[in-house]
């Protein structure tokens, strides 16, 4: 017996062990995991809604259906609806239309979406048709449709999908899904004989913790009572703005500021998106080129500016695409007299000046600087209410060498969605203009999406970009000196360095930001953080490296090393910062001397975090500031497996029949069926006199004494009647 048991155990071990040890786990033989997807849709929440994607905790599964044509897809959809079988739709970006997006979004039989391909000629902007309309200074009802490329009116990013969306770009994985999975198993399912065949299914897992809206999510996170754990469900979006004022402003200096701005961020529905060429990078490169040109002859520039008591404020706002986080916070700080930082008084020459709305005389924003084969035009937009004043300014700014046309303005003119609009919300009399390639609507079709990479993907476009951005920067610099030096021709003394523009283009417009220039100049360069190309603002723990890079470039362009010749170490350099608020001292690499030096800069960074998140929750009276938070999510997974048709009716009938039969079997009184069966023996003590009155004619009380070999103490044994009689008869 023992030997047999050992034998069986040994045999079991010998059979199971090889199966496990040969890396052929049963699960791996059943489903294939596709690990190379880099883009998955995630959830953002604002003060009132949740947007983006969600899957079940264990994933959303469905039969894989490739959208070949709209009509065929609709037929397949009808078939699956009638079967109540969920599907995962596989769609090419090229074929995405607003109609198809709306079907994907609204139909509950579509349990998930896998996208592939590129929107070469199609429009694919994930922003709404009226971007940031809820923060507009114009009437909500008369939203002007600037974004023609929007694939959905509300914006694909801002729809509440409630289903996962992945993007597959690996060729092998894509061919597995389209050919080995869909074409082999699922294409012919809609035929009458196909409905009971095997189908190929996929399961998409991307579970979001946050839900409801930002208020609910943050409140639950804060109220969590796990005494050792923390509950992380969502995080507010937060990063930094970067500013540089030339020449530096001290407390008692008169200020007339020309604010030249660009935005630092873009977004996408997909986490891991590297888009943002036209949305962000072209304007940033232009601004940095201007900074570099000024920096080469900074003393001359500053002297001329001081002669007129005017300053240039280079501003890089972060978080603009998601509700003007950066510019909204800046405007809020200005209102509270806390820009660039809380006022702290030192000696007059060591205290920097607080900047308010009255100090900003002109606000110029650069937006969507790009070039297409069709047009090469730029427009200066002004707000209709400032029509009279701004028109004069605009004429002064316009340079016919690059602006081949100027948009006509009327009292009803509207500026495109911009950081300038954010300032106007706080102070409607700020004079300014938006410099953009858009006339009545955007020229580029991929604004704010992961497909905004046309310059990055084309060497020829990068080369064109160098020349083009150089020209635009030259023109803008004329506008700058036209105000700051009161002389447009002063810009000729500050030529834009085309080699520098080329370096920036090569560094920024590439898949990863690991060019040698960045590696040298960025203090504490870390490849895993700084090289990861990402233009989405992100929560405070996972920011984009963009502002670090821009700050490092500004330090190189406009920082001075001659002021600190005796500072030899980083610690010494840091000690120069406290005690004054005029300059910012940074230890950074100097290419000419090939070593790190202490730079004196007039750079300041301010927090780009919405004022709505003052305490731990969301302040509900601040809904006209951005309230976006990002949800925390579990690791994503994409699996493909084969499955049978899930008709469970037969199984249900069979199981119920067996179950009912089994129950009925237990109800039969077996002792009636077989009187010869061995009876149970029930021992009854004499103390318990009350017995059930049910007739038990089979049982007979036999006093203990009559039986041989029984113990004393008056026990009565009841036994099956006939057997006892037989015994007694003996």
């Amino acid at each position, binding site marked *: 017996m023992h030997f047999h048991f050992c034998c069986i155990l040994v045999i079991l071990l010998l059979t199971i062990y090889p199966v496990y040890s040969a890396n052929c786990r049963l699960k791996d033989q059943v489903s294939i995991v596709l690990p190379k997807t880099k883009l998955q849709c995630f959830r953002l929440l604002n003060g009132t809604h949740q947007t983006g994607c*969600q899957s079940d905790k264990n994933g959303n599964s469905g039969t894989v259906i490739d959208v070949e044509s709209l009509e065929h897809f609709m037929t397949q959809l009808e078939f699956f609806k009638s079967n109540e079988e969920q599907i995962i739709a596989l769609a090419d970006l090229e074929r995405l239309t607003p109609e198809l997006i709306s079907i994907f979004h609204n139909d509950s039989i579509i349990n998930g979406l896998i996208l592939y391909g590129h929107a070469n000629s199609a429009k694919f902007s994930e922003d709404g048709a009226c971007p940031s309309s809820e923060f507009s200074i114009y009437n909500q009802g008369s939203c002007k449709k600037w974004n023609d490329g929007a694939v959905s009116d509300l914006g694909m990013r801002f729809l509440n999908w409630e289903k996962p969306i992945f993007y597959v770009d690996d060729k092998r994985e894509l061919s597995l899904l389209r050919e080995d999975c869909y074409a082999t198993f699922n294409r012919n399912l809609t035929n009458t004989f196909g409905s009971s065949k095997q189908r190929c299914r996929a399961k998409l897992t991307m579970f979001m913790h946050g*839900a409801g809206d930002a208020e609910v999510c943050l409140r639950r996170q804060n109220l*969590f009572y796990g005494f050792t754990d923390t509950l992380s469900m969502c995080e507010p979006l937060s990063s930094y703005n970067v500013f540089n004022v030339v020449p530096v402003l001290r407390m008692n200096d008169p200020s007339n500021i020309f604010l030249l701005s660009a935005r630092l961020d873009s977004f996408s529905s997909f986490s891991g998106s590297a888009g943002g060429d036209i949305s962000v990078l072209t304007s940033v490169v232009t601004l940095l080129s201007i900074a570099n040109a000024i920096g080469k002859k900074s003393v001359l520039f500053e002297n001329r500016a001081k002669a007129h008591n005017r300053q240039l404020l280079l501003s890089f706002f972060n978080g603009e695409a998601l509700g003007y986080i950066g510019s909204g916070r800046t405007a809020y700080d200005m209102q509270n007299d806390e820009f660039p930082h809380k006022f702290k008084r030192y000696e007059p020459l060591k205290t920097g000046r607080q900047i308010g709305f009255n100090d900003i005389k002109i606000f110029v924003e650069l937006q969507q600087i790009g070039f297409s084969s069709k047009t090469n035009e730029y427009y200066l937009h002004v707000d209709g209410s400032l029509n009279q004043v701004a028109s004069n300014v605009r004429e002064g700014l316009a340079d016919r060498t690059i602006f081949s046309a100027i948009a006509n303005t009327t009292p009803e003119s509207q500026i495109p969605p911009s950081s300038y609009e954010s300032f106007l919300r706080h102070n409607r009399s700020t004079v300014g203009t938006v410099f953009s390639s858009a006339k009545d609507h955007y020229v580029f079709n991929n604004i704010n999406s992961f497909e905004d990479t046309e310059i990055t993907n084309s060497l020829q476009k990068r080369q064109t970009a160098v020349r083009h951005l150089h020209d635009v920067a030259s023109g803008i610099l004329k506008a700058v000196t036209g105000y700051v030096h009161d002389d447009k021709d002063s810009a000729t003394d500050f030529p834009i360095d085309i080699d520098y523009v080329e370096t920036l283009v090569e560094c920024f417009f590439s898949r990863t930001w690991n060019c040698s220039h960045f590696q040298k100049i960025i203090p504490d360069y870390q490849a895993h953080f700084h090289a990861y190309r990402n233009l989405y603002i992100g929560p405070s723990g996972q920011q984009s490296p963009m502002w670090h890079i821009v700050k490092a470039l500004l330090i190189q362009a406009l920082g001075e090393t001659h002021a600190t010749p005796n500072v030899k170490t980083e610690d010494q350099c840091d000690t120069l910062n406290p005690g004054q608020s005029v300059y910012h001292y940074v230890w950074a690499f100097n290419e000419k001397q090939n070593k790190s030096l202490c730079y004196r800069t007039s750079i300041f960074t301010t927090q780009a975090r919405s004022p709505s998140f003052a305490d731990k929750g969301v302040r509900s009276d601040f809904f006209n500031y951005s309230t976006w938070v990002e949800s925390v999510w579990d690791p994503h997974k994409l699996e493909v497996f084969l499955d049978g048709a899930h008709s469970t009716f037969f199984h249900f009938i069979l199981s119920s029949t067996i179950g009912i039969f089994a129950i009925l079997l237990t109800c039969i009184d077996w002792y009636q069926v077989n009187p010869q069966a061995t009876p149970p023996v029930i021992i009854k003590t004499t103390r318990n006199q009350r017995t059930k009155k049910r007739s038990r004619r089979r049982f007979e009380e036999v006093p203990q004494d009559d039986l041989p070999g029984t113990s004393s103490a008056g026990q009565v044994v009841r036994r099956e009647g006939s057997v006892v009689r037989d015994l007694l008869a003996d």
Partner: protein
Amino acid sequence: MNLERIRDTEKLDLCRKYFYIGCFCLPFVWLVNFVWFFKHAYKRPHFAQQELIRKYTTFSIIGCIIWTILIVAWNIVFHYYRTSYAQYADYLSFVFPIGYK
């Protein structure tokens, strides 16, 4: 404890004690009281203490039913309005749902 072994006066005492204990917001004690003394209160032929035992068990079961109705009603109301009055529901909750509202 085997009820068969104790005298009827002690049974009445137990029943009464359980009833009073249940008055401290303990509906399960009332339920236990009812189930335990059900046979003695209603099924047994009349004995001296039976009326009082019957009274206590009846009140116990009535109290228990009222409590059940209240608890079920509160449960339904709380879950029905949980998402619309999420703020107040969250202050009352110990465990929060993850991933859905």
